[in-house]
């Protein structure tokens, strides 16, 4: 990854880097700024046995379950949100044993990612006392070795194979800019082995030099980037577009052909058809 090398590749090539069985930290939260175009492309390419690692997945984890592409999940809270309630295909996948879930609090998942980012085997996490989650997950406590008498849960390191982020803008070299909240994208980008990015558009390298404080991920951490306008559809990408609620509603319909129609009407599919 030498400095200044262009990193922009077509979406299908970006998705091809993700092999069956990979663990994916997916950026965004619920219906907001998720890397949904790449998630759909993984489905089109027939990927299997993937793992989602995300504090608040929704549409992304649901469509991966619906397509039979998911084997495991480490997640905090899972829902479609808005007025759509539970994520139905995810719910069914857990209830029928189609996927294996490791249930987290959002902050315990973050602690595991922090351990990876900080280069240590585990990370303390506040709270958790009195919950049934530690017994379920085998989480252990340590007593403060410096004698405060406090006992704290420690979460084992979580190192995703990939962090996959949907960004507002990137430079040709792969610097990443996000507007609005960064959700958990920053810690994901520091904890994963490899970072892939889908962005709405390219911005000039000069603009990144003008305001480096807006850069969430510097290019040297990023392996490759694809440009997919409206790639976070049917979710939002602030300030470019809001959630497409009718499209989410159409996706929720449990009828034959709905998933394929949904994949076919996605922005990246329509774009590809024009090429």
């Amino acid at each position, binding site marked *: 990854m030498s400095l200044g090398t262009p990193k922009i590749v077509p979406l299908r090539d970006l998705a091809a880097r993700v092999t069956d069985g990979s663990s994916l930290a997916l950026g965004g939260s619920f219906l907001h700024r998720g890397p949904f175009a790449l998630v759909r492309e993984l489905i089109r390419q027939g990927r299997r046995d993937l793992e989602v690692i995300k504090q608040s997945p929704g549409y992304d984890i649901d469509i991966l379950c619906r397509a039979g592409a998911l084997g495991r999940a480490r997640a*905090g809270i899972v829902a479609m949100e808005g007025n759509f309630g539970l994520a139905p295909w995810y719910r069914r996948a857990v209830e029928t044993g189609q996927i294996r879930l490791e249930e987290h609090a959002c902050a315990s998942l973050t602690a595991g990612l922090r351990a990876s980012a900080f280069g240590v085997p585990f990370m303390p996490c506040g709270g958790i006392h*009195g919950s049934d*989650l530690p017994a379920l997950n085998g989480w252990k406590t340590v007593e403060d070795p410096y004698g405060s008498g406090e006992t704290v849960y420690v979460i084992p390191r979580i190192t995703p194979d990939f962090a996959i982020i949907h960004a507002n803008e990137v430079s040709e070299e792969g610097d990443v800019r996000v507007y609005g909240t960064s959700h958990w994208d920053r810690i994901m980008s520091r904890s994963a082995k490899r970072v892939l990015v889908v962005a709405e558009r390219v911005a000039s390298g000069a603009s990144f030099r003008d305001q480096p404080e807006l850069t969430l991920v510097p290019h040297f951490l990023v392996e490759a980037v694809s440009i997919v306008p409206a790639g976070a559809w049917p979710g939002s990408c602030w300030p470019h577009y809001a959630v497409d609620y009718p499209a989410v509603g159409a996706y929720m319909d449990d009828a034959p052909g709905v998933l394929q129609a949904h994949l076919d009407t996605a922005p990246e599919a329509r774009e590809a058809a024009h090429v």
Partner: protein
Amino acid sequence: MSEWSAFSYVVTNLARFVRPNEITFSGVNSALPMLACLLAKRAYPFAFTYINVAGGVDPSPSQVPISSSDPVLAEGSRSIFANEDFYDLCTRGQMDLCFLGAAQVDGLGRTNVSCIGDWHAPKVRLPGGGGGAVMLPTARRAVTWRTEHSRRTLVETLDFITASGGMHGVVTPIAVFTKRDGRLVLASWHPGASLDEVRDRTGFRFEADGAEPTPPPTPAEAEALTALDPDAGFERDAAIRLR
């Protein structure tokens, strides 16, 4: 007749937990607490800091979004206080009031948001851990809400303890509970219901000393809610019934 609708009862009584000069937080999947925080900003003559899961700090959103994590909740914010920030704020003991969801609540104010039935073979897989396991024990006060008041939501025994530490408050369409000596006690009930009805529809035992019918909405509270939901779209979507 009561001046409350089941919807206004839940939203307004959540707002009444907001106190001056405190930091109050609303999260994902939390349209009713989001409305409560926005209502408190409009209706109450005191300052408090409202932070939310979209990174907003005292935002001035151009519209009230359907999704309580929508980025418009950061419009007008002077900073982005993102997810890691507000979790860390909470675990270090500086979150005054935190609204957290629950599927089941027990008499100690513990919550289940994980599953109905056995965790390993669930009858219903629920959203899961989320903020609760970390925020409920570490926030100074946490408050939850249920849009259904029944023995299957307010239970003697949780199917799974997702979060412990004890809710400071619980609001349902017919009742407001607060914590006293580590247990939830009835603070007030919807004037269209009764103490007997609350007892009959609650799965856990509770004290009710000093409880009384909930005071009606003030004009400021009613006006604020009307301003936030002028077409009653949120009220329709929430579909909360008294019984």
